[in-house]
């Protein structure tokens, strides 16, 4: 992993640029716990996690899920109550933050208001007693890297939010950290800028090869940027996987609802054949789905299916297909698609999304329709 990343960097880099944080480190959480108030409050509950050198891993979860606390323990601002954290095999849970050589971009950017951009970026280098010429050169190079050449003399308050974010990134990279931590770094920016910076940070990661641990509650951001995502809830990791795995094969109802939108249909597991489950949904009848976890026949189960995987049945004639009768309850235009809500026979509702194409008739409220989805797109959780 490191090898490929390094090779890539060399080929992409122009001659004058220096790499920053080029050698990423592997990070391992081993049964890490964090308790507060004499153990009454469990913020992080036995997290074990392997992050490969050079990987972009995102900790994704709602507030209070323990993602930020996990990041703070990696940065050294919190000490684990139990377990150990390793960076390149070295146990660091007891190492003070200033000796860890881990870069961090804070949610508020945390740029020093009394220092210029140049002084902010030079700060970690001066602490490392680098020669003056080297400090000046590195500062210039890293500002070029983040697209703010010549900004050394400005003060943070003179910059826009996006520019401050770039300076914070430059400052976190300039001292060649082994790992770069980012705590909701784009949360304060508007949507368009956020989306642009997501792609820029992702490109930068591919160029530099530094290990990045990224914290966000924005699932879209996590899907766009990450090599892998660890979904956290209530202090535990619910599921780890590539964005695609998490989206297509959510392991739990929480993951299915947190990442993207999902329909949940409650029913009873009737039988399991050829890796397919047949679920009896009251008022609808038997539906087929692929199985996610371990279930026994007769169990109460929930089948999920993504809104954009559901089509009106007249548009598709697959063999491996669930088709059900429904009544359209609402139609909402959401820009790139129409969002329908339809009620099934048993009273449960499903949501489906369909892109609007010329020549396709709109369904209207109250209309009886047949909707369906590929058996492989339904999953038991």
């Amino acid at each position, binding site marked *: 992993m490191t090898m490929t990343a390094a090779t890539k960097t060399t080929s992409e880099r122009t001659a004058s640029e220096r790499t920053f944080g080029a050698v990423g480190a592997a990070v391992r959480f081993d049964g890490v716990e964090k308790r507060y108030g004499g153990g009454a409050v469990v913020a992080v509950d036995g997290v074990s996690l392997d992050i490969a050198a050079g990987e972009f891993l995102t900790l994704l979860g709602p507030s209070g899920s323990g993602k930020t606390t996990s990041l703070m323990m990696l*940065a050294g601002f919190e000490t684990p109550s139990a377990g150990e954290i390793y960076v390149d095999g070295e146990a660091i849970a007891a190492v003070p*933050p200033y000796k860890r050589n881990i870069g961090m971009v*804070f949610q508020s950017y*945390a740029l020093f208001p*009394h220092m210029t951009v140049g002084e902010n970026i030079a700060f970690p280098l001066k602490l490392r007693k680098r020669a003056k010429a080297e400090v000046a050169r590195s500062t210039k190079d890293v500002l070029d890297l983040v697209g703010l050449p010549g900004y050394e003399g400005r003060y943070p308050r003179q910059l826009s939010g996006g520019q401050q974010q770039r300076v914070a990134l430059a400052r976190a990279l300039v001292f060649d950290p082994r790992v770069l931590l980012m705590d909701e770094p784009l949360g304060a920016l508007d949507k368009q800028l956020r989306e642009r910076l997501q792609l820029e940070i992702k490109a930068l990661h591919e160029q530099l090869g530094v290990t990045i641990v990224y914290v966000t509650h924005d699932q879209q951001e996590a899907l766009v940027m990450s090599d892998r995502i660890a979904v956290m809830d209530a202090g535990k990791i619910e599921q780890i996987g590539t964005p695609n795995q998490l989206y297509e094969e959510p392991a739990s109802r929480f993951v299915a609802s947190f990442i993207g939108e999902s329909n949940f249909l409650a029913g009873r597991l009737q039988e399991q054949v050829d890796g397919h489950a047949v679920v009896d949904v009251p008022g609808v009848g038997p539906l087929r789905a692929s199985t996610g976890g371990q279930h026994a026949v007769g169990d109460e189960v929930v089948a999920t299916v993504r809104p954009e995987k559901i089509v009106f049945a007249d548009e598709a004639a697959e063999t491996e297909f669930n088709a059900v009768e429904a009544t359209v309850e609402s139609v909402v235009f959401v820009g790139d698609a129409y969002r329908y809500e339809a009620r099934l026979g048993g009273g449960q509702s499903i949501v489906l999304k369909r892109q609007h194409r010329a020549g396709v008739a709109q369904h209207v409220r109250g209309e009886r329709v047949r909707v369906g989805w590929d058996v492989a797109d339904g999953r038991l959780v």
Partner: protein
Amino acid sequence: MAVVGREAQARRFAGLERRGQVRLALLLLPAVAFLLFFYGYPVAAMLLRSVNDPAWGSQNFEPLVTARSTIDLVVAELPMNAYVRVFGITLQIALGVTAATLLLGYPVAYALASLPPTQANLLMILVLVPFWTSILVRSYAWMVLLGREGLINQFLVGVGFAGEPLQLLNTRGAVYVGMIHVLLPFMILPLYAVMRGIDRSLLRAAENLGARPSQVFRWVFLPLSLPGVAAGCLLVFILALGFYITPALLGGQRDVMVSMLIQQQVTQLNWGVASALALVLLVFALAIYVAFTRILGVQRLFGGARA
């Protein structure tokens, strides 16, 4: 037609805006009137008196007028010398008290600002209770403590540290102790306000970038707390310049501050000299205030840590 309507509309809006401004000005009126009548007028009267009482260019300035050189002024046993000396003592005490309150107050403010707000508020009461107690009461309390038969002397003699009671009261040291005690909250409060406003993530960022705790303090916390230091020092220094009760009660005969001299002149009905002294003190305080604000800016001094 439409254009005329538009202009009328614009005039109406401008009128509304003006009326709003007038209303705001009315809010200021009572305070301004009060200050002009009870403060502006007396100060102006004092200003006049300082130069023309008992008569324009009278003996107040005689030494200055008759002296042929600076040496004359220094060697001559003129009242002018005494005044200069008193101003010297006053400045010295004010500076000493400012420095001491800063040294004592900074760590206290730092600790308070580092604690969670609930605990900090509780401890803040310890700072504020003396603040709410009359200066007179506190000065008398120090007289009781420092006197020949006072608690401190009884203790020192009791444990055999001193053979006989020490002269603690009516010394420069007693003046310092009393004034530092009274003025300490005026240092702690602005320091605390500024320190509370310092974003904690800045300290974390510094540590993350490789700064040891001492370096975090030196390069991040200290510079960001300087507006508080300036505000506290300014407040304490200017208050100390005009101190009267505490030095009068605790000081010795040689520890005369300007305000005591003014009182002396007033009891001797030397209104002209008293006014002149008061004016010089006022100019002193204003000059220091202007110098501070010029260097730091009022906004930074009283507007919190964030520029």
